[in-house]
């Protein structure tokens, strides 16, 4: 616990130092606002956007739109990816059927899929959802399948020797065993899904943090780009913290066995 506090302290100090250096570089005029707007300018921009919004949408509106897009996709990815990944882990034949597709699609930059997604699914919310969903889903599937394979043989044998049926073995032994890995997998997947937001919001969007960053970059509004990046990062970080907390409550034995 003491170490936990110290870690937080060190992190806070590191962030403060970075911001201080950034401020100093800015106020010494070592850089123009085109390259690296100083924190003061970002603050001014934030105030302006809070007051007037960006492109007719309030700033919190952009945040909420992006969060809504991402969270719907994350939920769908977890709800579908976990069972499919678990089945792949349980049944080698099923794994053999799906694995080539998963492994082919997973490393593809999702930007490359935009033209196809538009041709097939149009420029509405469905396409944006699909891009984020796909990136998240594939990572969830892979980690869920790997989680099943990493369940200790000994634990399964112990359960079998206690007379569990195949269904109960899955429900009461394998599933709880993979829970910690599932959480980690979903966390990693959500991190990847969140980075896909920019690609998703390149499709005919009028709002959202990703769109804001892209649009502002067309006009060299580095201040808005940086604000958008800060908000994207902070929101992603907050999501992860939330998941870590849920994970700690749901699988308290994580890393202890």
């Amino acid at each position: 616990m003491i170490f936990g506090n110290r870690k937080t302290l060190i992190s806070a100090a590191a962030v403060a130092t970075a911001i201080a250096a950034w401020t100093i570089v800015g106020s010494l005029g070592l850089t123009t606002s085109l390259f690296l707007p100083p924190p003061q300018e970002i603050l001014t921009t934030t105030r302006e956007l809070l007051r007037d919004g960006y492109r007719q949408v309030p700033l919190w509106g952009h945040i909420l739109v992006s969060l809504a897009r991402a969270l719907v996709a994350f939920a769908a990815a977890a709800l579908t990816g976990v069972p499919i990944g678990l089945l792949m882990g349980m049944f080698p034949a099923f794994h053999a059927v799906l694995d080539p597709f998963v492994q082919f699609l997973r490393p593809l930059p999702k930007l490359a899929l935009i033209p196809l997604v538009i041709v097939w699914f149009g420029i509405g919310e469905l396409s944006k959802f699909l891009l984020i969903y796909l990136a998240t889903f594939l990572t969830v599937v892979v980690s869920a399948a790997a989680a099943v394979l990493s369940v200790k043989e000994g634990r399964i044998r112990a359960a079998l020797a206690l007379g569990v049926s195949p269904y109960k073995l899955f429900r009461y032994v394998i599933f709880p065993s993979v829970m910690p890995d599932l959480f980690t997998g979903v966390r990693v997947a959500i991190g990847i899904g969140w980075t896909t937001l920019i690609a998703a919001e390149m499709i005919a969007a009028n709002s959202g943090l990703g769109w804001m960053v892209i649009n502002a970059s067309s006009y060299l509004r580095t201040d808005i780009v940086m604000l958008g990046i800060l908000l994207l990062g902070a929101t992603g970080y907050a999501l992860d913290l939330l998941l870590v907390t849920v994970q700690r409550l749901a699988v308290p034995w994580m890393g202890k066995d």
Partner: protein
Amino acid sequence: MARTRRGLLLAGVTGALLAMVGPIGAAWAQDVPKVVRFGWFNGPRPWIIGKAEGLFDKRLGTKVEWIAFPSGATALTTLAAKEVDIVRLGSSPTVAGIVRKLPIEMIAISGVIATSERLIGKKGINTVKELEGKRLAYPPGSTAHYALMAALKVNNVDVGKTKLLGLTPADMVAAWKRGDIDAGYVWGPFSHQMESDNGRELLATKDLWKSSYFVWNNYVVRKEFSQQYPALIVKFLQTFEETANRYKQNPDEAARLIAAHLDQKFEFARDTLAGLEYLPLKEQLTPKWLGNSQTKETATIAKSMADAANFLAELGDIRKQDIPSSFAPSINTTYMEKAVGGK
């Protein structure tokens, strides 16, 4: 002994310093950089003749590196990163760059957009006014974007009642084919693709001239580069004029050559080339367009740039207070003047 040694050392250092300073001083005379990086977009333009035949390399006396950009936004960021020297850029991104204090200057118009960018609507939509309540697509930040907003304004369309969708040209065509959009303002070949698939031209950029909305492509240079190699810029403009003249003398032959070089269809190259007006440098120096060093302040282009800037500020893409009181300082006509005079 020691003194001689020190003397030698001093001489050496001075020599080295001189060697370093030397080229900069001499640049004003005739020095050329090892390579000139020229940014362009894939569309057919008369100066592609110069690219195909290596004319620019020959006239400039150095190697030209061609960097194709996917969008004006990318060109701007690349300019900011000093990774490109001369760029053929649309008027809208040029204005955005100047407002954002990008150290660039506009040196000449490469072509005034006339019919190469058009507003295509679905069959059944006959006038711009009928676009109210419809879904309209545009490439964000492009000249077509500006032209679309101008067209809506000129035709008294309530923008609040339309749904505006920013799409890259290729995505726009895909969305069009699916019926996801009702109209789109874009350049060829995308406008042709939409037109041939149940589309109909509602307006071309040329129709906006009478309401004094001008959209054009121009050359911008990094100031640092043009100050170092002014003579090279002059030669560059002369070569450009040479290619434009060759196009005008025989458009079909030029189109064939350009189409072959770009791996594009001849008809497409021919139509696109015909969709822009290539102003002779002499004409550009009149107040009707850029004006010269004395008249540029009140000439049309400086005013049009201010209009475009105000339009971007209204959209919220740039800050009103960032707009300079005049765009004339970012327009440098001296190279054109020299290019014309030198002939």
